[in-house]
C-alpha cells in the first residue's frame, strides 16, 4: 500500500532538506541558548533560541515520520465486541459464589457493612480541622462604638482632613480586620446627600461612610466617579449611587453597600457610632 516514492536500496523516500534544515536549526538554537544563558541575555534571547532548537528538531522528526508514514499504511483488526453471554453468565455465577461465602452469614455480613460504614463516616470529622466554624466572623468587622477612622497609613481622620466633595479610604484605628472593615469616606456638599430613613444621624456634617466590600463578589469597590456620584467595583462593574444609600444602579450587585454610622467627637475626629448594623460584603445564606 505504498504511496510515496521509493529510493532504490534506501527504503522509503525521506526529503533531506526539511529534515536537515531542522536539525541545523536545532544545533544553532542550542548554541544560542547556551550563549544567551551564560551572558545573561534577555528573556527573548533565551526563549527564542530554545524555541528555535525545539521547533527545529520537532519539525525534522515530524517531516521524517510524515515521509515514512506515506510508505507504510497497514491494516489491522479492532478488538471484537464481546459477545460471550455464556462467559458473562459464568462470571456472574462465580462472583455470586464468592460473595455467598460472606453473605450466607446474614447477620455478620450486614454487621460488617454497618461497621465499615460507621468507620468511614467517623473519618469525616477530620474535615473539621480544615477551618473554624464561621460563627460570628461574617457578621462583625473591626468597627465599634467610638473607634476612630484612620487612613491606610494610620493617620486619624478629622473633619478638616477631607474637604467637601472629597473621598478617601478609611479603616478602624488599630488595624483590626482591615479587609472587611474598609470604608469609602465621602464628604458631600451640603444639601446633595439624602440620608435614608432612620439613618439621619449617621452622616454628621455630610460625612458618609460606606462599606467598600462589594455586595456582589467581595472585591473592593475601588473607583469613585464623582461626576456621577457613584462607587464602581472594578471586578464586575457594579455601580452604587452614593447619594441614595449606595443602592446598586448598574451591574450585577443586588444589595446596597452597608453604611457605617458615623459621629464626630469633641476633638473633631471622625468615629464610628457602632459596627455595621448588617453583614458586609457578598451575600450568604443567613446574612442579615
Amino acid at each position: 500500500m505504498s504511496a510515496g516514492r521509493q529510493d532504490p536500496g534506501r527504503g522509503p523516500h525521506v526529503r533531506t532538506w526539511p529534515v536537515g534544515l531542522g536539525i541545523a536549526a536545532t544545533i544553532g538554537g542550542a548554541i544560542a541558548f547556551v550563549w544567551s544563558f551564560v551572558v545573561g541575555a534577555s528573556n527573548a534571547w533565551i526563549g527564542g533560541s530554545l524555541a528555535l532548537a525545539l521547533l527545529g528538531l520537532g519539525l525534522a522528526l515530524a517531516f521524517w515520520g510524515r515521509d515514512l508514514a506515506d510508505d507504510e499504511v497497514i491494516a489491522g483488526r479492532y478488538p471484537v465486541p464481546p459477545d460471550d453471554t455464556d462467559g458473562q453468565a459464568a462470571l456472574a455465577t462465580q462472583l455470586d459464589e464468592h460473595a455467598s461465602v460472606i453473605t450466607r452469614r446474614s447477620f455478620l455480613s450486614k454487621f460488617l457493612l454497618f461497621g465499615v460504614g460507621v468507620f468511614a463516616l467517623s473519618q469525616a470529622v477530620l474535615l473539621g480541622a480544615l477551618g473554624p466554624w464561621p460563627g460570628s466572623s461574617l457578621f462583625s468587622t473591626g468597627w465599634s462604638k467610638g473607634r476612630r477612622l484612620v487612613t491606610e497609613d494610620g493617620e486619624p481622620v478629622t473633619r478638616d482632613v477631607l474637604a467637601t466633595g472629597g473621598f478617601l479610604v478609611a479603616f478602624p484605628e488599630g488595624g483590626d480586620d482591615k479587609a472587611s472593615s474598609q470604608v469609602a469616606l465621602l464628604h458631600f456638599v451640603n444639601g446633595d446627600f439624602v440620608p435614608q430613613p432612620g439613618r439621619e444621624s449617621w452622616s454628621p456634617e455630610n460625612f458618609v461612610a460606606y462599606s467598600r466590600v462589594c455586595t456582589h463578589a467581595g472585591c473592593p469597590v475601588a473607583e469613585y466617579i464623582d461626576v456621577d456620584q457613584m462607587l464602581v467595583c472594578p471586578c464586575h462593574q457594579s455601580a452604587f449611587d452614593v447619594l441614595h444609600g449606595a443602592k446598586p444602579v448598574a451591574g450585577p450587585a443586588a444589595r446596597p453597600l452597608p453604611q457605617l454610622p458615623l459621629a464626630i467627637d469633641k476633638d473633631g475626629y471622625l468615629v464610628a457610632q457602632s459596627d455595621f448594623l448588617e453583614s458586609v460584603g457578598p451575600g450568604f445564606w443567613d446574612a442579615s
Partner: protein
Amino acid sequence: MTDHDLKQGDRGAPRSRDHDLKRGLGRAFGVRTSPLRPAARWLDTNLGGSGLLREELRHIFPDSWAFFLGEIALYCFIILVATGIFLALFFQASEAPVAYQGSYAPLHGAEMSAAYDSVVNLSLDVRAGLLVRQVHHWAALVFVGALIIHLIRMFVTAAYRRPRRINYLIGVSLVLLVGMNGLMGYSLPDDLLSGTGLRIAFSITESIPFVGPALASLLFGGEFPTSGLIARIYPVHIFLLPAAIAGLLGAHLGLLWLQRHTQFPGKGRSDQTIVGTPMVPAYALRTTGYLLIVGGVCAAFAAFVQINPVWLYGPYRPWDATTAAQPDWYMGWLEGAVRMWPGWDIQIGGLLIPAIFWPAVIIPGLIFTPLFLVPWLDWVATRDGAFHNVLLLPGQHPARTALAAGFITFLSVLLVAGGNDVFAIMFGWSQPTFLRVLQYLIFLLPPLIALFTYVLLRGRARRWATTVR
C-alpha cells in the same frame, strides 16, 4: 527466545554452542544479526514479553490531523510537569511578610508575602526563571485550549459512542480538573489579581445555600483573607490535582491503546478493520516531533509574549483593586456569566440565596452535567448502542454539529462578557449598554448560529449522500 536459551541463562553458563553456531552460520550466509539482540535477550530474561512488545510496536494509529489535538494536550501536561518542577525549587508557599529586596526598583522595601516575593525574584533575578514561568503559564493556556478543541472533535464526530463511553467521561473529567488546577496555579503568586480571584472564589463558595458559609470557612481556613491559604493551595496545585490528572490521563491512554483509535470513514476501513501507520517508526517519530513542536511554540510565546507580569500588579492587599482584571481565558466564560446575571437576590423568610449563586454555581453545573451525559443523551436520541470504531463526519449529521455550534456560541458570548469592560473601552462603547446587548445575544445568538449551521450542513449532507454513495 526459547526455553532452552532461558535455562542456559539461568545457570549463568556461557552462551550455548548452539547459539554461536547459529550466529556463525548466519554470518556465513550473509544474514545480518542485529546488534540489539543482547538487549532483546536482556529484556526477555529480566522482564519477559518480547513477543507482546513486538506486537505493540506495530500498534496501528489511523491518521488525521484531528487526532493530534489530544496529543497536544498530553504534551502540554508533560511540559507543565517539567517546568513546574523548576518553579517549585524557587517558590515559597508562605504569606509571611517580607520586605522586598530584589532588583525591581518600584517595589523596593515594599512589604509583601514571601510567596509574592519569591515569584518576583524568580521572574526578575533568576536566570531563565521568567522564561520557565512563562512557558508554564502558556502551556497551561494551550493545554485547556487543546482539551476543549479535542472535546469538540469528540462530540462532532460522535467518538464517544460505545466502546468509548467511559473514556469520554474520563476526558470530560480531565477538562474539569485541568481547569481547576489552572485556577489554583494563578492563585499562588499572591499578586493583586490572584488575591482578587481568590476573594471572588470565597464569595462564590459562601453563596451556596445552607452549607455555603461553613464550606467556605473550611476550604479557606476561616473568613477571607486567611493566612495559610497559599500553603493550602500549593500541595493541591503541585500534587493532588496533578496526581489525579496523571492517573486519569494514564487511564485515558490505556483505554485508547486497548480499544485502538477511532478512524474516519475511508477505503478499507470499517468497525472491524483499522487502517493506519504503525507505532514504530513513522508514528513514533512524528509524535515525538509534535511534543517538541508544542514545547517550541510554548517557548516562543514565553520568549516574545509577556504573560501575567506579577511585578507590575503589586502584592495582594484586600483594599487594592485594579481595572481590566480578567482571569485566564478558560475561566472567562464563568467571569462573563457572573457579570451578566442580573442582581436577583432571592429572600426566603430571613434566608438569602445571593444572585451570584446562579451564574457561578448553577450555570457551570448546567454546562458540565449534560456534557458528562453526552453518550447517554446520544443513545436516547438515536437508540444506537452498538460498537463504533468508524467516526461520523461533522457534515454528515447536521443536528449534532449544529448543537455543538450553538453550545460554542453560548460559551463565546459568555467569554466576551467576561471582558466587557475591556471591549467597551477598546471600542468606545457604553459599558452598561454593551452588557445589555450581550444579555440579549446570549439568548439570540446560540440558536441562530445552531440553525444556520444546521441549514448549511443539511444541504451539504444531502449532496454528500448523493455523490459519494
